[in-house]
């Protein structure tokens, strides 16, 4: 029987806050730093109460110096501190590319393994409400291209807590990507501290018709579709990739051996993205198991527009995934079944918000 505490639910944002709190309680070397960390909004609530509990020495705001402060965190990490740095938008981390790519990623390698950089950088991906070209990029592939960085993107509150604790305890630089539309999603989250592997994908919905491998928020869209299909006895397998680097090819390959069909869904642009990398690997390693060419559901090759009128159509969603499943798996639904599934998965909110409770500003 599930105990009451084990069934406790938290939002993704609350799970992050709890992970930070427990990691800071466990290790006095853990510090949290970022623009707005101790401010009244507390990074969408994810850092709420930390300064009160751990003090201003360990819970820090910072100057608008993304590159310099990343270097400061790297220097501290080389001297026994475990910094957790937060960027309210992943776009801001582009200012820190020199320190992330030239120093954090390479320090362990270029100095022959003498030292490592235990640094976590939380990067929030925005979407909707007119955030436009510079506040809603999904840059996992950009970072995943760099050896020495780990790039993870939990999709559930359970994984957000477990993977953040594991990332803080990891001795490498870990980029922890949070999609803003996941922050308010509830999940069962154990009260105690726990660790979730940073390099393993997870089957979140078992099936045998088709494999959908999804990253971050796209896991939620894929799950909606899988659940709607399940009512009609059609079992779609959904894999939550959880990590862009390393990319767990084995879990996807095992699934493809079963289904013979692969769709990869990402929150980012298709070209040069992790969808491309994953499909390449599956083609290289499992070509004979594929019954049809794998396909991608991802963003088109242009930046996000701001106007919600212009953005209506930019983001693929559950309906796109549904249609692609029907096509690739050659599923012929009756009119009623099709209407039922579309009814189940169609977005009822305005397209530019995660839910009706969201009224901006970002």
């Amino acid at each position, binding site marked *: 029987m599930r105990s009451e505490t084990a069934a406790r639910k938290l939002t993704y944002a609350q799970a992050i806050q709890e992970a930070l709190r427990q990691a800071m309680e466990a290790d006095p070397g853990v510090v949290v730093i970022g623009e707005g960390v101790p401010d009244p909004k507390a990074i969408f609530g994810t850092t709420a109460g930390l300064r009160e509990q751990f003090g201003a020495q360990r819970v820090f705001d910072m100057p608008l110096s993304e590159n310099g*402060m990343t270097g400061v965190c790297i*220097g*501290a990490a*080389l001297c026994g501190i475990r910094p957790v740095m937060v960027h309210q938008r992943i776009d801001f981390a582009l200012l820190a590319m020199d320190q992330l790519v030239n*120093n954090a990623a390479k320090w362990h390698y270029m100095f022959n*393994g003498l030292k490592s950089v235990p640094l976590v950088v939380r990067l929030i991906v925005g979407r909707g409400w007119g955030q436009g070209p510079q506040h809603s990029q999904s840059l996992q592939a950009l970072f995943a291209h760099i050896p020495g960085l780990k790039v993870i993107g939990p999709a559930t509150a359970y994984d957000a807590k477990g993977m953040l604790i594991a990332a803080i305890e990891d001795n490498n630089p870990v980029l922890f990507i949070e999609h803003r539309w996941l922050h308010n999603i509830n999940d069962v989250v154990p009260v105690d501290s726990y660790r979730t592997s940073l390099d393993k994908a997870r089957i979140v919905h078992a099936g045998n018709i088709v494999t959908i491998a999804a990253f971050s928020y796209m896991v939620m869209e894929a799950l909606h579709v899988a659940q709607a299909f399940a009512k009609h006895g059609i079992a779609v397998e959904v894999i939550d990739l959880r990590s862009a680097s390393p990319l767990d090819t084995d879990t996807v390959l095992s699934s493809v051996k079963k289904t013979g069909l692969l769709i990869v869904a990402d929150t980012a642009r298709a070209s040069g993205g992790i969808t491309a990398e994953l499909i390449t690997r599956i083609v290289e390693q499992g070509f004979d198991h594929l019954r049809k060419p794998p396909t991608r559901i991802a963003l088109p090759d242009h930046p996000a527009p701001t106007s919600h009128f212009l953005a209506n159509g930019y983001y693929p969603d559950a309906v796109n995934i549904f249609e692609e499943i029907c096509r690739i798996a050659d599923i012929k639904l009756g009119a009623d079944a099709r209407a039922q599934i579309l009814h189940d998965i169609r977005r009822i909110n305005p397209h530019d918000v995660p839910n009706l409770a969201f009224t901006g500003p970002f």
Partner: protein
Amino acid sequence: MLRIRRVEEALAEKYAEQQMRCPMHLCIGQEAISVGVCATLTNQDVVFSNHRAHGHYLAKGGDLKRMIAELYGRSTGCCGGRGGSMHLVDLDVNFLGSTPIVGGTVPLAVGAAWAARLKGDDRLSVAFFGDGGVEEGVVHESMNFAALHRLPVLFVCENNNFSVYTPLKERQPNQPIYKMAEAHGLTSWHGDGNDVETVFNIARQATQAIHNQQGPQFIELSTYRWREHCGPNFDNELNYRTAEEITTGMAACPLAKSRKNILAAGTQSMDQLQQLENEIDREIAAAFEFALSSPIPTYTDAVGKVYAQ
């Protein structure tokens, strides 16, 4: 200083043999800064440096044999051959690393100082960089944060007037670099970087101020790079600097000045100085021998240690 000079000259001499196959930035002419600053540090104080790092590494006490082996790409090198001249490290003496992205290690020195503050350690950090370094935004970001939290860090700017072949006047308005540090709220110092006693006296006061909780300090020291930006040769034929400038710059040799002072003061005789030089040359010869007789790594040694356990 003499040891650093003789090491650099030996490297320059042997570089043409094409066995040290990596970019090398010699610090001949600039030795007084490394020596004068590092003489004020304890072993536990940490140093970060840049592409022109040999002097900083040796002055902090870095292992000469492992440095030479690194330049030859051998397994016994301080980075096992992964770094070369532009990536030196010796954790035994807290020389935490040098890298060639200009300004790139300056925030790391500030971060090390921040860690010392968080852990209550009485150790300071030093960042060595050049006049080009202060043109990097990250250096100003570093100074701002260090000043904001009064962190125990010493910024050392070696002003040799050149970024590669481009003179300072083509890169910065005509104003002293140390004034920029003052504008950030740092206590700043400046002086003749070719006079080791001047460097030592300034560095001693600056490090003492840091130990006295007076916050981060900035030192600008003028000096002169004798040879080409990268490589072993003199480069007078390139004509980016006048013959007169080169003559004047080399006449300000920190070693010559020091030697004159030592002999005048009578603390060492000419014979003793010659004996010292002979000892240094023997040590250098042994370091080259160590490097050249060290195991040669293979590609299989290059693939691991991307991630720490």
